[in-house]
């Protein structure tokens, strides 16, 4: 049984209410920070913990905090990124729905560390019922004196608000989120300046993911060094993994970083193995944008080492044979899944979600969607596969924000590892007419098909 720092009370009845949360040790980090630590001491603990941003990029959180312009005369802001939209990721929703006070506690402690007196939680608009849960919890926290003026009798004051989004994946990119919070279209900003210098209302701003902010609570409670003892190397602490797809037990799991991927997939404690007694074909380990890996490469690295759930192990081998931990959106595909069809849904997603600001992304995502659509539906040409590789290459690195890369990587990796499936669709169009083609007749390598 792995150690839990965020979800240890997930099954306590009434944990979403202030009273039950408080009885289970809630808001201790606020008391400790406000009464016995300076803001810089809190930041120091976060640095020592080695906590890395849990939204996907994995940038060290303490370092991000230290970039905040503390000399500016302008007010500082902490903005929580709860615009969880990466396909395969639903951990933040789970956390906010089950234990809303954990996020609020983290917001208060973190805002204190950053010297912010107004903070916002930007939640994707579709999570409307979660917004209701958060607002209720915020009300309770105000009434209990943990929000508002002179919190716990100190001279620290904080107002906390929830802001709904409007349904745009791009607002998960932090500068697009800030644009949206200012009431504009979610077009990412050119950087620099970074939000730490000029963010919300051109003031110094830190934007952190829900899980990152929640992790500040155990870090302050037990100390950064203690937190850093969990995990391996630069992957410290615990991580929430959203498990979905063809597994027996989809859901949100808190794991200690360093858990073997094989154990995560097959043990009863986590995913419980592949559904319907089938075999695994592939895994998207960190949300839709990270490279897909076939079974042999997700369980072991190209060097033959056991693959672990850490930032480093999952990316071992670069994009040639590795992937990324990303947001922890762990999607499992069984042997009947069609890689091309699955990829098509992602290509359509990125085309739909491109903000349209940069030509390579706006045009390229549309072309990728069209070309993959025709391959999947049996109208592809042999040259389409290299065309896709070419389009993906021309998007990658040529856009203001990482959405372009996020759209290109799944396409490039699917072709890298499953090129034969694309060729099969093009050469045997009659076999892919039924949308469930590989459930009806499993995919076989063309080499075997020709020789039989």
């Amino acid at each position, binding site marked *: 049984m792995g150690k839990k720092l965020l979800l240890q009370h997930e099954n306590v009845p009434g944990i979403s209410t202030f009273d039950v949360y408080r009885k289970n040790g809630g808001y201790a980090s606020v008391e400790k920070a406000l009464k016995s630590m300076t803001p810089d001491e809190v930041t120091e603990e976060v640095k020592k913990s080695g906590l890395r941003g849990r939204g996907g990029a994995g940038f060290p959180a303490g370092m991000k905090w230290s970039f905040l312009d503390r000399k500016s005369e302008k007010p500082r802001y902490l903005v929580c990124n709860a615009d969880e939209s990466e396909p395969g990721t639903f951990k933040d929703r789970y956390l906010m729905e089950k234990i809303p006070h954990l996020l609020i506690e983290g917001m208060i402690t973190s805002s204190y560390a950053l010297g912010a007196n107004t903070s916002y939680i930007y939640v994707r*608009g579709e999570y409307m019922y979660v917004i209701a849960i958060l607002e209720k919890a915020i009300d309770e926290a105000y009434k209990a004196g943990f929000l508002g003026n002179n919190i716990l009798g100190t001279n620290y004051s904080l107002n906390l608000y929830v802001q709904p989004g*409007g349904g745009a994946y791009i607002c998960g990119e932090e500068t697009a989120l800030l644009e949206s919070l200012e009431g504009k279209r979610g077009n990412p900003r050119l950087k620099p300046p970074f939000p730490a210098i000029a963010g919300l209302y051109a003031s110094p701003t830190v934007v952190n993911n829900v899980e990152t902010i929640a992790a500040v609570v155990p870090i302050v409670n037990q100390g950064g060094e203690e937190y850093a003892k969990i995990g391996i190397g630069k992957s410290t602490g615990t991580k929430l993994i959203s498990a979905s797809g063809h597994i027996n037990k989809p859901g949100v799991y808190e794991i200690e970083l360093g858990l073997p991927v094989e154990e995560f997939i097959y043990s009863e404690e986590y995913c419980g193995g592949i559904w319907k007694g089938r075999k695994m074909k592939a895994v998207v380990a960190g949300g839709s944008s990270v490279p897909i890996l076939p079974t042999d490469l997700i369980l072991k690295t190209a060097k033959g080492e056991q693959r672990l759930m850490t930032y480093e192990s999952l990316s071992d081998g670069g994009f040639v044979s590795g992937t990324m931990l990303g947001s922890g959106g762990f*999607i499992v595909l069984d042997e009947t899944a069609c890689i091309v069809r699955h990829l098509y849904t992602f290509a359509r997603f990125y085309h739909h979600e491109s903000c349209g600001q940069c030509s390579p992304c706006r045009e390229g995502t549309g072309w990728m969607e069209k070309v993959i659509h025709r391959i999947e539906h049996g109208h592809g040409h042999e040259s389409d596969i290299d065309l896709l590789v070419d389009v993906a290459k021309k998007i990658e690195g040529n856009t203001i924000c990482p959405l372009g890369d996020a759209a290109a990587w799944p396409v490039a990796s699917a072709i890298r590892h499953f090129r034969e499936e694309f060729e099969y669709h093009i050469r045997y169009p009659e076999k892919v007419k039924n949308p469930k083609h590989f459930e009806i007749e499993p995919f076989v390598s063309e080499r075997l098909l020709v020789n039989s």
Partner: protein
Amino acid sequence: MRQMSQETKNMEFSADTRALVDRIIKRYPAGKQKSALLPLLHLAQAEFGGWLSVPAMDYIASILDIKPIEVYEVASFYTMYNLRPVGKCLLEVCRTGPCMLRGAEDIVAHLENKLGIKEGETTADGLFTLKTTECLGSCGTAPMLQCGADYYENLSNEKVDTLLEKLKTVKDHSTYMRSNRQEI
């Protein structure tokens, strides 16, 4: 018809909603009231029949003291704002990868069959609009759909049938659209 009747209607929030609007605007620093645009568009959509007409958007512009174009460009950017009338119950089925793997396409086909409409269409009685949507962050409970503020998860054809029957008997469908309107 609906569009006509709405455009001629006098656009104004109820007193309760207006009070809520004032509280929302106070969340932002003085002069930054434009930040309230997204929350207010959600309120307008809920209060004015599930979609945003031009007069509705102009009304929001007047409340926030911004140009109408600033509202239009935002409303047309975000997927959740409907710029055309929709049925009383907007059924949005998630269709992205993880949901597709767990049978979202079958759920859409079942709904099309059951409602006698295609994706993107509205039933003749104006009760249901069927849409597909991109990832709603419910991949672990796929397949799923959203109706109003609520998620309906781990769907099967039987569950869909039960939901449709339930929605047909609801008297005031606006509650589905705005069950959390106090909280937006």
